[in-house]
């Protein structure tokens, strides 16, 4: 009760301060006038009575002040006073205040937004129970695979079955492959994306179905009944979320499948990296048990496992490795010379994006540091401006702690306003960032500003206030009132110290800007090189689509593809050709080929690229020597091939490739003769090495050619629409996926491009901040030395010399900063090399460029102060003092 009354009193004192004051005045006035009345009654004369009353009462002001102290709200009131004072004085230099606030908001907002992305992608746990017990498991091979550049490969199903039968450290193991399914619906056939999976996948991930049941061990058995589990998205969008769906049938690949369950949306099983291009986009729509083909081990399957409670992934993998060694011993097909390796499922989902994420965070943090340094710099300038005021306040009796506090209040106020702005900016910035982020980043669908991110933003705000606040406060506390009052604040020692501090800060900014400029130069140059890589074929105006074969179309493939091509080329302005490997699609299956090497077989590994006779023409691949395909290269004629330059150079360095022979594994008895050499094409990707490639005419090869490439003019969407209609008319199966090549290339470089744009933008920001910082130092030092410059000019110095001196001191700052930045960038460059293509992390020209950039910044920063210095009028400068 009493506490409430006390609190109420304090609140009243704070909120109705004016009323409290006037009541105090009146109360005391009443007392004094009563005294006067009493004295008058005693016969004193009025003037004397008033004086005597005041004498008796004592100091009214002291009494009032003591009464005020009794309100116990002194601290808050002083703080309020400081805040009001700060707002007033900041309003006098709104430019600086606005710059500081927006700089804080920008830097922290950007950091927070980037941190949210990093958190969502890297740190947020997978949406499964006890996700730390989940692992992805690979087989390792003795040597690295040329194409993937790693020694990891996904196991085949028979290997997994062996693992499942043994006692490993995993309580459940499962395998799945991405597949496309042909769904027979009322509207016609449609290709949808799904996965073939074992029950272990469901068990390991531990997600319960929203309806019905998941795949069970009984479904794993060979020849089991045809069942299908649907995704929640498919169930809702295609089947209207009808819960009568269980037990109904879905015709997939011509075979009825019984619907047994629906999995919730979060059951979004990671897809394999290499197969995705041929499949329809989006998440898997349904799951079926493994097909006979996968069971037999004809395809590699992603394997995941859940470690037993209390065990670790490493320990479980060790036991699995022992088991696997036994399997290798037994000579199981597909296990020869392999080991096992496991990574946490989260790590495998995040993949090599981890480095990019940290890179983003570090570079944005660097800018935050630059911004903070710059804010400190500006606040110091503000503090210097107010040194005289501080001195006056100190002389009037303000305590040192009170002065420091008032300066601290200033920083805290700026940081607070900036922090609020930062949080707003983080929310807005994140949605902008999500649009800019490469769509190929994993787990991007789960990005949202979380509480942790918000706390991070606020933490940064507070840290900034603490970091920035003390600097000017310390300077203010050092103020010697006499000293500051005597001079006009221009030549005091503390002024010099402050300027030295500010010069140091400017140097730090330049150093950081140099680091970022170097990074931007390296990444920019690398990206430019990547984009200007010789692709080997005309990518402009090229679209592709996938048409899955059926048994019939495969049997009559020559005829089928001829018909299809003829019909496609009826679309105006379109040339069409079919192939088995679309270049730059990220896919490139190699095959063993045996070259005839002086009568002996020489085994090599090469990409077998199969195309129609107009392949080179439509793709725009030049034939260097010999000939390309001809319509006469049929199954009946002699087998021919065209090799790429890389293969020719590597295996027939004497330039005698034409006329050489080889055999493929497909048909060991048929010799194939090389009739031409074609230009190199990048198959795997822009940054990947060119592999030996053999082009075979489709009319002589026994492989599917289900990738159709259209060279077109005009609107790609319209052309693809027309092409789909053609496919619908000719093929029993519809188009499963389309792409426009330039778009696909854009997507394949989306992450490096984003990294590049990101750091270029940040470097620009850092450069701007450094420029501001340097400008501040130079402008201040010119203002400080106006008198000195006046004296020099009076003594005959030319304007040019003065200008040179100012620009020279700017250059000096820049050089020192660049030197420090150079050391930092040089020693940290190694961390960068993973992001660089065809350019070393210590590329000298880039460093020189960054140096030149910093020099330009220093000249721009020095320009205005130099002009002001040159314009100093000696007479008025000297009179001014």
């Amino acid at each position: 009760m009493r506490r409430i009354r006390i609190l109420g009193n304090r609140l009243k004192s704070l909120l109705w301060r004016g009323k409290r004051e006037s009541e105090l005045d009146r109360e005391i006035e009443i007392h004094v006038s009563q005294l006067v009345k009493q004295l008058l009654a005693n016969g004193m004369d009025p003037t004397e009575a008033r004086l005597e009353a005041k004498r008796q009462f004592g100091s009214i002001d002291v009494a009032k002040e003591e009464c005020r102290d009794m309100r116990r709200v002194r601290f808050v009131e002083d703080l309020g006073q400081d805040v009001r004072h700060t707002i007033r004085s900041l309003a006098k230099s709104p430019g600086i205040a606005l710059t500081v606030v927006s700089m804080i908001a920008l830097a922290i907002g950007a950091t927070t937004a980037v941190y949210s992305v990093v958190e969502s992608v890297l740190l947020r746990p997978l949406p499964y129970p006890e996700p730390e017990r989940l692992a992805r498991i690979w087989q390792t091979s003795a040597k690295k695979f040329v194409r993937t550049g790693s020694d990891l490969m996904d196991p085949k199903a028979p290997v997994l079955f062996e693992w499942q039968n043994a006692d490993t450290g995993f309580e459940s193991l499962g395998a799945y492959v991405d597949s496309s399914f042909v769904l027979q619906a009322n509207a016609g056939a449609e290709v949808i994306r799904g996965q073939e999976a074992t029950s272990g996948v469901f068990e390991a991930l531990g997600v319960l179905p929203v309806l019905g049941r998941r795949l069970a061990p009984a479904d794993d058995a060979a020849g089991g009944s045809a069942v299908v589990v649907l995704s929640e998205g498919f169930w809702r969008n295609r089947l209207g979320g009808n819960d009568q769906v269980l037990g109904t049938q879905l015709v997939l690949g011509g075979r009825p499948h019984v619907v047994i369950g629906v999995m919730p949306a979060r059951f979004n099983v990671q897809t394999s990296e290499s197969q995705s291009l041929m499949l329809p986009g989006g998440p898997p729509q349904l799951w079926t048990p493994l097909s006979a083909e996968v069971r037999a081990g004809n395809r590699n399957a992603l394997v995941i496992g859940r470690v037993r409670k209390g065990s670790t992934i490493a320990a479980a993998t060790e036991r699995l490795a022992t088991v696997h060694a036994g399997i290798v011993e037994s000579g199981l097909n597909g296990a020869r010379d392999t080991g096992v390796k496991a990574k946490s499922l989260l790590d495998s989902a995040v993949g090599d994006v981890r480095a990019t994420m940290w890179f983003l965070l570090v570079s944005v943090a660097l800018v935050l540091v630059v911004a903070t340094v710059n804010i400190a710099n500006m606040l110091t300038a503000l503090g210097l401006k107010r040194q005289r005021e501080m001195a006056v306040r100190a002389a009037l009796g303000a305590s040192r702690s009170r002065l420091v506090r008032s300066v601290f209040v200033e920083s805290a106020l700026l940081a607070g306003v900036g922090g609020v702005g930062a949080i707003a900016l983080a929310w807005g910035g994140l949605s902008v960032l999500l649009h800019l982020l490469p769509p190929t980043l994993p787990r991007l669908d789960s990005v949202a500003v979380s509480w942790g991110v918000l706390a991070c933003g606020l933490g940064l705000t507070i840290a900034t206030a603490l970091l920035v606040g003390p600097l000017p406060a310390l300077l203010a506390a050092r103020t010697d009132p006499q000293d500051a009052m005597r001079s006009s604040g221009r030549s005091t020692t503390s002024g010099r110290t402050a300027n030295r501090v500010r010069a140091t800060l400017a140097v730090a900014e330049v150093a950081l800007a140099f680091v970022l400029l170097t990074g931007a130069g390296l990444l920019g140059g690398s990206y430019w090189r990547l984009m200007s890589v010789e692709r080997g074929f005309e990518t402009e105006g090229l679209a592709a689509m996938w048409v899955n074969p059926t048994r019939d179309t495969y049997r009559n493939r020559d005829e089928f593809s001829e018909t299809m091509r003829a019909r496609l080329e009826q679309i105006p302005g379109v040339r069409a050709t079919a192939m088995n490997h679309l270049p730059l699609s990220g896919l490139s299956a190699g095959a063993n080929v045996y070259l005839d090497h002086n009568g002996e077989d020489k085994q090599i590994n090469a990409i077998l690229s199969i195309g129609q006779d107009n392949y080179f023409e439509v793709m725009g691949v030049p034939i260097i020597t010999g000939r390309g395909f001809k319509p006469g290269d049929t199954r009946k004629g002699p087998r021919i091939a065209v090799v790429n330059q890389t293969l020719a150079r590597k295996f027939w360095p004497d330039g005698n490739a034409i006329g050489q022979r080889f055999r493929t594994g497909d048909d060991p008895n048929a010799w194939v003769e090389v009739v031409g050499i074609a230009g190199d094409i990048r198959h795997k990707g822009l940054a990947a090495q060119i592999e030996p490639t053999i082009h075979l005419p489709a009319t002589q090869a026994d492989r599917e050619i289900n990738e159709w490439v259209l060279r077109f003019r005009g609107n790609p969407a319209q052309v693809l629409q027309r092409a789909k209609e053609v496919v619908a008319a000719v093929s029993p199966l519809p188009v499963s996926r389309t792409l426009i090549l330039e778009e696909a290339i854009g997507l394949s470089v989306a992450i490096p491009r984003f990294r590049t744009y990101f750091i270029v933008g940040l470097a620009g920001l850092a450069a701007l901040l450094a420029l501001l910082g340097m400008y501040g130092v130079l402008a201040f030092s010119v203002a400080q030395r106006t008198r000195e410059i006046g004296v020099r000019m009076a003594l005959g110095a030319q304007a040019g010399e003065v200008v040179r001196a100012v620009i020279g001191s700017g250059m000096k700052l820049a050089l020192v900063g660049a030197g420090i930045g150079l050391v930092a960038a040089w020693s940290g460059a190694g961390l960068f090399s993973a992001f660089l293509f065809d350019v070393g992390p210590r590329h000298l020209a880039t460093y020189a460029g960054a140096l030149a950039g910093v020099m330009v910044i220093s000249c721009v920063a020095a320009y205005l102060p130099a002009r002001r210095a040159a314009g100093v009028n000696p007479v008025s400068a000297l009179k001014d003092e």
Partner: protein
Amino acid sequence: MPKPSDLLQGTLDLLILQTIWQEPLHGWGIAKKIQVLSGEVLSVGQGSLYPALHRLEQQGWLTATWKDSDLGRPAKLYALTREGKKQLERELHSWKRLSSAVELLIASA
């Protein structure tokens, strides 16, 4: 007229609380009443009366309201709160202990 003796340290609170326990009074009235009731022996320094009143109000022993008064104009009248009455009892109790101790000492020394 002999000069009223200074107040013993710490007794001002007791005097104020005791003075107004029957009826609310303004600052002037409290000062006068202390002077009169003590037979002109005790006098409150005016400079210390008001800070003390404000402190007691702040601590919740007193409430203050502006009301018409015997001075012919509204004045700030202080009254005891319920907690203030308890506080007065505590103060009286400790004062009695102190004064009897002092008397005992004087009598027996």
